[in-house]
């Protein structure tokens, strides 16, 4: 029993990080119907910001988190302004290729600065409590609780503020919204800022939980988070959160009860089956093409 509970905690930790990154994919898709493939690499940049701030500025955890989030959010807005905006009316393939290119640029730029894996110093003193055969680490708790808080805040912004309403409106119909006096460009920038900022936060927490970071760390995690977003129903914010926890849970539980070699194979087979049953994802709704 304690074993299952321990594995459930592991799943929550991994799942909350996947969910935070998946949010960035889903928000951008919801607004621009474009997949920002550079998002995984923005997550990596978040972890590197965390490293730089912690090592060279010696700040404590909260300022490091906030500064990294702001840094990545700013980078996200700049990328949108200079790389994606000029292509807004171009074929969608061009935008996706550009996103891949931006991702490669970020990877190789970081690589060119220093190819060595970096170690993020412990920003928080970790305490491990033992209850029976169960081990609770303060770090794990912080990652889970903080991610949940960020997700709740996002949910609030999207559902109960004017900016959130504008976001939902743009994802509904991009041509009518400007007629209502909403600045589409501003809302798109805001969406990018929030989405990539959350990716940055995920990078910081990932860096705390798995403190060895390298320029390629965003690729695999990014792909997995993208899959989470698709499984949850891409474009749907609550769907991305659910998708993150599902993938985290499946990955951990498969390795917990089957030989760990089967992990990715079983996890992705299950997700494929889920997509066959629900092709638009768990919370996604089909959008019939209007003629």
């Amino acid at each position, binding site marked *: 029993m304690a074993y299952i509970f321990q594995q459930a905690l592991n799943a929550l930790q991994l799942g909350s990080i996947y969910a935070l990154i998946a949010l960035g994919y889903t928000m951008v898709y919801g607004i621009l119907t474009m997949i920002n493939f550079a998002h995984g690499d923005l997550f990596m940049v978040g972890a590197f910001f965390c490293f730089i701030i912690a090592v060279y500025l010696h700040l404590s955890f909260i300022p490091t988190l906030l500064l990294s989030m702001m840094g990545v959010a700013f980078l996200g807005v700049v990328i949108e302004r200079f790389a994606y905006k000029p292509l807004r009316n171009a074929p969608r393939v061009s935008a996706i290729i550009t996103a891949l290119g931006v991702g490669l640029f970020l990877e190789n730029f970081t690589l060119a600065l220093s190819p060595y894996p970096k170690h993020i110093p412990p920003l928080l003193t970790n305490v491990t409590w033992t209850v029976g055969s169960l*081990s609770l680490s303060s770090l794990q708790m912080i990652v889970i609780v903080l991610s949940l808080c960020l997700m709740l805040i996002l949910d609030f912004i999207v559902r109960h503020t004017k900016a959130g309403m504008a976001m939902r409106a743009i994802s509904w119909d991009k041509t009518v919204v400007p007629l209502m006096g909403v600045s589409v460009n501003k809302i798109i920038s805001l969406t990018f800022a929030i989405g990539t900022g959350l990716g940055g936060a995920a990078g910081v927490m990932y860096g705390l939980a798995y403190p060895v970071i390298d320029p390629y760390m965003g690729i695999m995690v990014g792909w997995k988070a993208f899959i989470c977003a698709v499984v949850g129903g891409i474009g749907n914010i609550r769907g991305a959160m659910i998708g993150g926890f599902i993938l985290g849970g499946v*990955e951990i539980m498969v390795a917990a009860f089957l030989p760990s070699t089967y992990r990715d194979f079983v996890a992705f087979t299950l997700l494929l089956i889920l997509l066959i049953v629900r092709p638009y994802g768990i919370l996604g709704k089909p959008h019939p093409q209007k003629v």
Partner: protein
Amino acid sequence: MKKSVVLIILLVIFSLGVCGCSKEDSSQIKVGVIAELTGDIPAVGASCKNAAEMAAAEVNDAGGIQLGDQKYKIKLMIEDNAGKADQSASSAQKLITQNKVLAIVGPNASRYALPAAEIAETGKVVLITPWSTAPKATLDSKTNASKKYVFRACFIDPFQGGVVAKFTLDNLKLKKAAVLYDVASEYNKGIAEIFKDVYEKNGGKIVAFETYTTNDKDFSSQLTKIKKAGPEIIFLPNYYSEVPLQIQQAKRLGITVPFIGADAWGSSELIKLCGSDCNDYYFSTHYAADAATETTKKFIANYKTKYGATPDDVAALTYDSFGLLLQALKTAGRNDRQAVRDALAKIPQYEGVTGNMQFKEGSGDPIKSAVILKIKDGKFTWFANAKP
């Protein structure tokens, strides 16, 4: 019209450039080096490059190597394989066909050495891998006989896995072990399986045999499973960039048993990434910098003055690879790929900075001893020797 003129001019300039650099200099011997300068284990590539440059500089500073009545200088062609198997193969291809090197040193990690070794074998060019311990690197993929052109400067995993297994049983007296290894990497997988085999044959019990794939960062599920199995020691035959994560996560999950590792731990980066979490653990490796013989001490001192760091095992093995190659060149007496291969295959033994190496006729694998190092206060210290 204008555009095409510019294009033609550019093409002409470019082709001139290509012609310019392919001009042969007859007083030079070109040696290719393939190193992991970027990618997941850049510290390995950096050590390899440093040692290669040092070995070449030593020859060139002495005026070059005397072959027949002419002195030749060594010219290094260093290629980065970016920590990728395909790029290792294409680097080898480029060095052989385009740069026309005499021989290749590297790549180091087995998963990159294997594809490059295949290219070298078909291209009939000597390839010496300093650090690849997987048996397959020097074996023909079809017939399982020894490759003719591939050699190495290190021992192989069947030996190393056995050394670690016996050390755990006999010296540490721990009879229940768990293993966590990267199933997608040649080296990790090979040594994990050999460890299991030898450990069980000698009376030990493997209580958990868990895997992950390259670039995974979360091992919590596997470690929780290992914790439940209750081992007395955990064997981590993984690279220095992953081991710290595994040990730190294990500690966070309340695992208190010791860890043991193999030669892929032996980079000073391990200490940087691990901090004090890796103290008091053991690993097997190729040489101990603090228990060195006279020749080794000289090498260590030279390396330190040049690069300001103690050479790790990759550096020492790269230096030995060059030593082997130079000795073969001297015996061969001419700058010829086939002659050098034949001379290299006939070297019965070689006294390198990583100890004495003996070669069996027809095999590219040296027989040499291993050392067990202990991590003490953030330093690698000699603990025991293991003879073949």
